[in-house]
């Protein structure tokens, strides 16, 4: 068993230590961004509110999640746009 494991290592299969480390890093990033579903829902509503001022969006198709890369976290949102509102141009002008 051990000998086989060594053989696999020689062929270039990842060592279990590296696997453990990577899995831990990923799971901890998720654990540490301890955001409740309620808070996530509020964030979604607020985002819809703000974006709707400028764009017509498909609210029910919005995808909102955290993406983990190496040691950093990004909030990734996919928001399908139906159309751009004309009044957005006015809003974009300085008051």
């Amino acid at each position, binding site marked *: 068993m*051990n*000998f086989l*494991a*060594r053989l696999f*290592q020689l062929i270039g299969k990842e*060592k*279990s*230590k*590296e696997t*453990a*480390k990577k*899995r*831990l*890093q990923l*799971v*901890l990033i998720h*654990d*540490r961004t301890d955001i409740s579903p309620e808070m996530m829902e509020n964030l979604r509503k607020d985002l819809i509110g703000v974006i709707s001022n400028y764009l017509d969006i498909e609210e029910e198709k919005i995808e909102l999640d955290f993406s983990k890369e190496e040691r950093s976290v990004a909030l990734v949102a996919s928001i399908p746009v139906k159309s751009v509102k004309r009044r957005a141009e006015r809003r974009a002008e300085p008051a």
Partner: protein
Amino acid sequence: MDPRIIVVTSGKGGVGKTTTTANLAVALAKAGYKTAAVDGDIGLRNLDVVLGLENRIVFNLVDVVEGACKLQKAMVRDKRVENLFLLPAAQTRTKDAVSAEQMLKLCDELRENFDITLIDSPAGIEQGFRNAAIGADEAIVVTTPEVSAVRDADRIIGMLESMSKSPIRLVLNRLRPAMVKSGDMIDVKDVLDILAIELIGVIPDDTSVVISTNKGEPLTLGDESLAAKAFSNVARRILGEEVPLLDLDAPDQKGFFGFLRKALGL
């Protein structure tokens, strides 16, 4: 030295909290500090058996906080080591038998009577853990080089930080140097990278720990094993001494035959 209270905790069960508490308590007492080892695991007491004091218990922690007896009366004095006292947990009660306020009051009293108090925390993140930690100034987090244990340690460190415990330091228990070398165990550095807290010691996985628990004789009473030495070193670091980490490569891993053994994975 101002009296210190240190909670020994881990999140996950079975990583060696009680063994660590017992060995550190013995080593600190041997160093001349009046030491209290407090079993914070109400309902599942174990520190008494690991310390080998189970036959001497009359009163327990719950009796003290309920005012049924004085602290001094409940403390079991260890006859093998001067300065070492055990406050056992109640075995027939549950965690609800003690409140946070009662624990705080108990810690005040321990501070008046002992130089160093070690509180062995129950596993988990609920009230039992909170009670064990609430009165402590510092924390020692015990973990093993496994994904599950490190993950739970991370969670508990977050909670200890929010409870303003300082310092929070890590004991990495049951390290197997041969497995680390062959790439099949997370290394000390990996764990520290991930948890980002100060290391206070690394304890090798050692059969002598099992034997000492069988006998109820903590290794730091006088065992010659590497684990005993590692625990003693942690105690010295608690006392502020700068002690380099041990070379954990066991003697049988060295030399030609050691090389052969390792190569064959024996």
